[in-house]
């Protein structure tokens, strides 16, 4: 039993922090906060390029694929540090799609796709959900039909975040309509410039843009199918444990918590610090406990992956606990700030730069996105305790 960071991990963390101190300024952070989820601005492009220059988009890839072969705990440390700094994190291309290609692609596909992903030149919008296939993802209906040396794609995807700036779609399609839902799906790589693709922007509550994307007789070469014909469900679900650990990251919450505590020490209301109000102090102590529990659950899942274990239930636990804490902390923080809790990041007087209300308004998306927390609870009960699926 050892709760310490390994020495190599501590060195890695110091390296990341040094990089952030040198390349991510207070102005950049303000830019990120004010962008409110606009992930294609010039600052973010520059920052991603700087990550790519260090091969940090290929952190956990094996060395033979040009990666740095770092552990999942190191990846979590990295993402925690980015989150704490308020920097844009690595996206699903690096954390989810590339590992899936490495696991399931042919040697020719690895050679073709990995170098440009590592360089930040290829970025994927992930096309899983459809208007009629959300939590029940296996019911997706976007069709891909073989025609000679090409696949012809027709259908519609939604919550396709990044389609307005990404270079490619990572697209789950039905290739066998007669098979059972899980067995007739394949994953196709689709260049976003291909004729027949229409991107409609959707604006969400917090201001983050996502998209609905229509595919009409979109043609891609046959070798753009990754992971075997009708094997797409396996390709998709293998990546999900990793994705849930990434959603369970707590660095951004720690930043909010520390900022809130600092604010409560310094802000004097009616002659006493805000933090001297007993109801405020108790609320902060509760958040301190929950934040530590969230961190422990997150690192536990990462450590299991590094130990070669498959953290099905444990990955779901970190996803649920951290995202529920986003909601609680965003709510508590805005209430503690009182009237000032409604100020947005463009207002010079916004406490914590408006971070509290950003967390409050982003939390719903985290709770229902990435597999709803209800689906995660099903996984915990069924995989952790053997309770049956409803037949």
């Amino acid at each position: 039993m050892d709760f310490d960071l390994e020495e190599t991990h501590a060195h890695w963390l110091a390296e990341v922090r040094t990089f952030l101190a040198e390349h991510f300024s207070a102005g950049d952070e303000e830019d990120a906060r004010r962008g409110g989820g606009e992930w294609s601005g010039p600052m973010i492009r520059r920052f991603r390029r700087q990550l790519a220059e260090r091969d940090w988009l290929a952190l956990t890839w094996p060395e033979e694929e040009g990666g740095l072969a770092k552990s999942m705990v190191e990846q979590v440390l990295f993402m925690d540090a980015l989150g704490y700094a308020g920097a844009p994190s690595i996206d699903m291309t690096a954390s989810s799609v590339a590992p899936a290609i490495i696991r399931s692609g042919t040697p020719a596909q690895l050679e073709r796709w990995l170098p440009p992903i590592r360089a930040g030149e290829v970025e994927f919008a992930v096309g899983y959900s459809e208007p009629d296939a959300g939590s029940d993802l296996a019911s997706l209906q976007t069709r891909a039909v073989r025609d000679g040396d090409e696949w012809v794609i027709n259908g519609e995807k939604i919550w396709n975040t990044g389609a307005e700036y990404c270079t490619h779609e990572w697209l789950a399609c039905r290739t066998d309509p007669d098979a059972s839902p899980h067995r007739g799906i394949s994953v196709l790589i689709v260049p976003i410039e291909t004729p027949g693709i229409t991107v409609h922007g959707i604006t969400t509550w917090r201001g983050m843009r996502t998209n609905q994307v229509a595919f009409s007789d979109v043609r891609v070469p046959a070798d753009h199918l990754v992971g075997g014909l009708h094997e797409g469900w396996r390709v998709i679900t293998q990546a999900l444990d990793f994705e849930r650990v990434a959603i369970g990251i707590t660095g951004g919450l720690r930043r909010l918590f520390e900022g809130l505590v600092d604010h409560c020490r310094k802000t004097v209301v009616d002659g006493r610090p805000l933090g001297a109000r007993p109801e405020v102090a108790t609320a902060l102590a509760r958040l301190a406990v929950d934040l530590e529990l969230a961190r422990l659950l997150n690192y536990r899942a990462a450590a299991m992956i590094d130990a070669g274990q498959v953290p099905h239930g444990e990955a779901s636990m970190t996803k649920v606990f951290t995202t529920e804490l986003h909601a609680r902390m965003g709510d508590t923080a805005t209430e503690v700030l009182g009237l000032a809790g409604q100020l947005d990041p463009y207002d010079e007087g916004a406490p914590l730069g408006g971070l509290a209300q950003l967390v409050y308004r982003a939390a719903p998306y985290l709770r229902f996105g990435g597999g709803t927390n209800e689906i995660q609870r099903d996984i915990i009960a069924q995989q952790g305790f053997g309770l049956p699926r409803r037949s």
Partner: protein
Amino acid sequence: MDLALSPEQEELARSARSFLATVMPAPGAPAVRSDDEALFAEMAALGWVGLLLPEAHGGGGGTLSDLAVVAAEAGRALAPTVLFSAVAAARLVELAGTEAQRRALLPGLAAGSARATVALHEPDHEELDSLATSLEAAGDGLALVGEKRFVADAVGASHLVVAARRPGEPGVSTLVLVPPGSPGVEVVPVGTFGGDRQAAVSLRRVAVSEEDVLGAPGEGRRPLERVLAETTALQSVEMVGGARRALELAVEHVSRREQFGRTLGTFQAVQHHVADVAIAVDAADLAAWQAVWALEHDRPSTAAVSMAKVAAGDAYRRATLTAFQLCGGAGYVTDHPLHRYADRAKAASLTAGSTVDHLARLTAGLGLGTGG
């Protein structure tokens, strides 16, 4: 980060679990007393009471995490909690006592032929800085004056370790060994719903000498704080052991019971209760072990210990109350073991610092100021 037990600890956990499975009563049988003498003797014989004590004084020379392995199994089996009151008092003798006191007392305490317990809490005071029991000059010697309460397993103990202050001192400074049969000591059991054996202890000018003081007068504070922290961390692990068992009892019920032509466990409403408790128990487990680890390796531990206790209390109460909800009447009857876990959950949550106490400590650690 490595969350695995060592192979030796795995073996210790296995042997503790199988031992406790054979000696603890079946569901529905009368509950075992918290100070059950026969079981205490067996636990001492297994080396559990002395696990943390030096080998030179009859102990096992083990680590705090070794003891935590036993605590988790004790919590799971609802083993007599006298184990923990005895461990804490013996550890105080080790850390605060002189070499002569260690040599004289520890072998018997480790073997279970003697048993001590700590007299700390008082009716009108909670913090170490406000406890009022005093060690005063009396003729040629000293006298203890004060009221202690919620002294665990005091009846039948060979020694009380009394936390006291000297006149003029700002708080507890000195630990004094007192046999409960001494003139002026009155031990009155209190009635708790958990059925454990706690007592109020009146100290009416109890004559003691310098030799009865553990170590020297004024040197008891740091050992006491250390042992209270260890006790809190160990109890957090023990509580998680019980919480996990309560969750298992609920899962066993909903996996078996059928209603509406389906197993209860197929209902999503039921599964989500199970999942939420499982998350709380796993989180508390990690926090409790982190507290043990921090103490064992002399890392900053104040916040870790309080977080562990808050999380363990929340998880244990939630696990038992949710288990009642999932088992319905079948779990509410005294033939079912669940009610004993529920009793222990609440009693343990209030002991070694309540949730409110530990949140207050965490608040103090945040440095929020007091203002006017």
